[in-house]
Every structure is written in structure tokens, then in C-alpha cells.
């Protein structure tokens, strides 16, 4: 795969210089910090807003609620950010003609694609680590400590799901010349996978199926079989990269 190292360095530098990396990290940190806060104070906020008319008794929030809030926010905001990062990655370069300029150099098309998705995955990875660290610390202060090892493993599964959404959008960005069309594919996949995720057996092997083992790991709920969902999502990402390459290798730029 000619030129992968050089292209990867270029892409990572681009993630930094276009402020995408720091910006996504900051937004994920915000998600990480605000999730335990929301979990802890939502009952009090509702009580204060509802006043004496508010009769529903809400259960006392726990560390599990803090994790659930984090998983929900990462699953929604995080997935949309993954789509945003991937939507223009190839399509915009084709539209502007910069892809053709790069590919006249001794670099393969496979390296061109892999370096781009790897840079997006790195940005999402750094951001997920920061979000996880922030959420873990706030959960410790507001509730109780969660098992560190399990929480780290849970964040890895959350990251894998985000990379899967990025890879779907990346395929759209490779096939079309429109970043908006790619984003449309990413958002459509997010909705469809969300619906398919409800189906018991099928749902386990979709990116949405990573949520249940991630939760069990984060909360230390005993034995967790994460290997199946993890392999399925990794396979999906690999398959999407191969399809992107098959579409891109003979594409007119």
C-alpha cells in the first residue's frame, strides 16, 4: 500500500490544522461532563420547574443513569459528528480536484482511502477517550466510582460503533461527488440500524448491538460476551472499506 505513512501523517495534520480534532475533542468532553450532571440533577430540575403541580416521584439517580445518559449522548451526538467528519472526506476532494492532484504522486488509491478513514477514526478515538475520562470523573464525584477497566472497554465499544457510522458515510463520500449525499447515507444508515437494532438476534451483530455489552462492562455487571458484536462491527467497517476501494479504484477523478 504505497504512501500510507506519508498520507496518514498528512491527514492527521489536516485534522489538527482544520481544528477538527481539537473541536471534536471539546464537544465530546462537553458530552462527557454534562451526561452525569444531567443524570444527577434532572429529577431536581423537573421538581423545580413543575413546582407543587409535579406529582411524579422519580427514582433516585444512580451511576448507571449517568452511564446511560453518556451512552445515549455519545450514540446520538457522537454518531452525527462521525457523519459530519466523514461526509466530505473524499467527495469534497474529488469536487475540488485535490484528489486527482494527490493521486498523480506515487501513492495508491487504497492508501488514499485508508489514511482518510484512519485519521477520522483517530479523531473519534481521542475524543471518545476524553469524553470517557470526563464522564468517569464526574460520575465519581456525583455518584460513585465505576470500574476503570470495564469503563475503558465500554468506551472502546462506543468508539467502534462511531467508526462504523463514519465508515458508512465514508462509503457514500467515495461513491458520490456530494458531501451532502454522503451525509444523507450516513443519517439514513443511523436511522435504519437503529430500527434493525430492535430485532433481537440481528440487532446483536449491528453497531447498535455494542450498546448492551458496553453497558454491562462499564457497570461491572459480570460476564459479558462482547466478542461477537465487536467482530461483527469490525467486519462491517472492513467490508465498507473494501467496497469503498472497489468503487474508487477505477473512478474517474
Amino acid at each position, binding site marked *: 500500500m504505497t504512501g500510507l505513512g506519508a498520507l496518514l501523517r498528512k491527514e492527521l495534520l489536516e485534522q489538527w490544522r482544520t481544528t477538527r480534532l481539537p473541536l471534536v475533542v471539546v464537544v465530546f468532553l462537553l458530552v462527557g*461532563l454534562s451526561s452525569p450532571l444531567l443524570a444527577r440533577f434532572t429529577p431536581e430540575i423537573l421538581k423545580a420547574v413543575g413546582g407543587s403541580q409535579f406529582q411524579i416521584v422519580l427514582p433516585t439517580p444512580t451511576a448507571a443513569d449517568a452511564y446511560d445518559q453518556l451512552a445515549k449522548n455519545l450514540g446520538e451526538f457522537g454518531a452525527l459528528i462521525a457523519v*459530519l467528519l466523514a461526509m466530505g472526506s473524499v467527495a469534497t476532494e474529488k469536487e475540488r480536484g485535490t484528489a486527482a492532484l494527490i493521486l498523480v504522486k506515487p501513492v495508491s488509491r487504497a492508501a488514499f482511502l485508508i489514511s482518510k478513514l484512519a485519521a477520522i477514526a483517530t479523531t473519534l478515538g481521542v475524543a471518545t477517550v476524553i469524553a470517557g475520562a470526563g464522564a468517569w470523573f464526574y460520575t465519581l464525584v456525583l455518584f460513585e466510582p465505576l470500574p476503570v477497566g470495564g469503563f475503558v472497554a465500554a468506551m472502546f465499544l462506543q468508539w467502534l460503533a462511531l467508526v462504523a457510522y463514519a465508515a458508512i458515510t465514508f462509503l457514500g463520500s467515495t461513491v458520490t461527488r456530494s458531501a451532502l449525499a454522503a451525509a444523507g447515507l450516513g443519517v439514513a444508515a443511523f436511522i435504519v440500524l437503529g430500527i434493525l437494532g430492535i430485532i433481537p438476534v440481528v440487532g446483536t451483530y449491528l453497531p447498535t448491538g455494542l450498546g448492551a455489552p458496553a453497558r454491562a462492562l462499564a457497570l461491572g455487571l459480570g460476564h459479558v460476551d462482547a466478542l461477537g458484536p465487536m467482530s461483527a462491527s469490525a467486519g462491517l467497517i472492513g467490508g465498507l472499506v473494501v467496497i469503498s476501494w472497489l468503487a474508487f479504484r477505477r473512478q474517474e477523478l
Partner: protein
Amino acid sequence: MPELKPEQIIALLAPVVVIQIGLLIAGLIDLGRDERRVRGGNKVVWALIIVFVNLLGPIIYFVAGREDG
């Protein structure tokens, strides 16, 4: 669940508020630069997105709104 004093709650909320306001201001300052070109050409629309699209507004602008971003 540990009991928290008001000043502890404020200390925990402060980073969240600072980040949210910081993102909004950074987005608007970048948008306000004379040489900045934006997707669709309409800076007012992007200003509205930055201000009103909760949390995601500034990042939508920084990632997808800037022509050279």
C-alpha cells in the same frame, strides 16, 4: 450518592458552561472574519446555526460550513 454544596455544584457546572460559550464565540469569531467563505455563501444562516442549533451548531459550522475547512 454524595451530598454536594452549592459551590461544588457551580465548580462542576463551570467547565460545561465555559465550553459551550467558548464554542459559540469561537464559531462566531471565525465566521466574522472578512476572508472567511462559507458553504452556500450566506453568513447569516451560519450564524443562526451556530447560535441556535444546540451543541452541534458550532461543530456543524466548523466541519461542514467553512469552504476551506
